[in-house]
């Protein structure tokens, strides 16, 4: 990633501005300006058995953290700082996931294919399909379905559109959810999980609320929010993991 002097100055100015205002728009601009760096670093890790798309997501999470934590007064170039943070995130990704994530590419692909099968079959049957039904429809064995679901568990990283913990992504959320849903989590239940819950992205808060307080099924939530059930599943698993570690730390 090469920038000319004026572009670098412009970015420096934006970092100073962001440090003062914490403006979401400036943050977005800074992230966008450095996505190339995240992609570049993700590619450097791409020969280790992980899909490049996943690594790019992990690297993007690292970039988000770097933008949020960068202190322009320290006299360090952002690219230096961000490279360190992003590589750290990528390394942690490989370390934390251990052998579980080195699921064969085939399983990752089957997992993605099953996501569509779950939606189609749920609609056709009017209920959540069984594993044998999924296997028959996808023309694979039950074991492969189970293995793929497990492989998918590893595939649950924050996407770039997910806000950083604690941040309210008002616009995004209101475009996805009715006002009722967004307001709902401000109800008394929030107190139960607060302040742990408040650290999660708002969309995950809503999903947790719908699943655990409203008692909706995963497929019900998927339908209500217009996202795939597997995405609901991934976000739930991730939220619970975050809540667990937050509870342990407190």
């Amino acid at each position: 990633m090469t920038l000319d002097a004026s572009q670098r100055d412009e970015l420096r100015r934006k970092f100073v501005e962001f440090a003062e205002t914490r403006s979401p728009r400036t943050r977005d601009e800074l992230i966008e300006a450095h996505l190339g760096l995240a992609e570049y670093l993700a590619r450097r890790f791409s020969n280790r058995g992980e899909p490049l798309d996943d690594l790019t997501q992990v690297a993007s999470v690292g970039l988000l953290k770097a933008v949020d934590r960068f202190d322009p007064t320290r006299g360090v170039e952002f690219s230096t700082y961000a490279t360190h943070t992003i590589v750290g995130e990528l390394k942690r990704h490989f370390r934390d996931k251990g052998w579980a994530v080195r699921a064969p590419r085939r399983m990752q692909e089957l997992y993605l294919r099953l996501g569509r099968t779950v939606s189609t079959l749920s609609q056709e049957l009017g209920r959540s399909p069984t594993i044998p039904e999924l296997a028959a429809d996808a023309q694979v064995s039950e074991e492969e379905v189970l293995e793929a679901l497990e492989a998918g568990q590893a595939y649950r990283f924050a996407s770039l559109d997910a806000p950083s913990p604690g941040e309210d992504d008002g616009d995004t959320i209101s475009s996805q959810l009715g006002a009722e849903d967004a307001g709902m989590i401000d109800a008394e239940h929030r107190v139960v999980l607060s302040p742990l819950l408040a650290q999660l992205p708002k969309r995950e808060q809503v999903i947790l609320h719908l699943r655990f307080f409203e008692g909706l099924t995963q497929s019900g939530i998927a339908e209500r929010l217009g996202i795939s059930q597997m995405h609901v599943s991934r976000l739930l698993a991730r939220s619970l993991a975050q809540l667990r570690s937050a509870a342990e730390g407190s």
Partner: protein
Amino acid sequence: MVTQDEVRDEIRLAVPATPEFLRLARVTASGLASRLQFSYDEVEDLRLAIDELCFALIGSRGRSGTVDINYAVHSDALEVVGVGNFDDDQTDPMLASFSEQILTALVDDYAVYRDERGRPAFRLVKRRQPTTDGS
């Protein structure tokens, strides 16, 4: 109580008490749930519940020792009992309040306790919901 039903099959699994092996606990549970014709929704609930309860025993970083997991297959339910055999066993197993809320929504019955030999343990029961089309 599910335990009044006849246990049709019993499967035992002993895994190191570290997060990377919880995968085996989940896969075993979902494999058995699949045999019981649990729906995809129910299998996903079960996996989350197993995670939640196992982590209550081993913590997010794991412990030194093993978790012995016993799966009892009933006619319409799966009962899972996990027992920690830890080298260093100081703290009582406990659930955060959100865990209680979560588990209530995920499974039909659960408990975290010390077993008769004083080891930290959990138990869960997940029933298959009857479906309208009889499958």
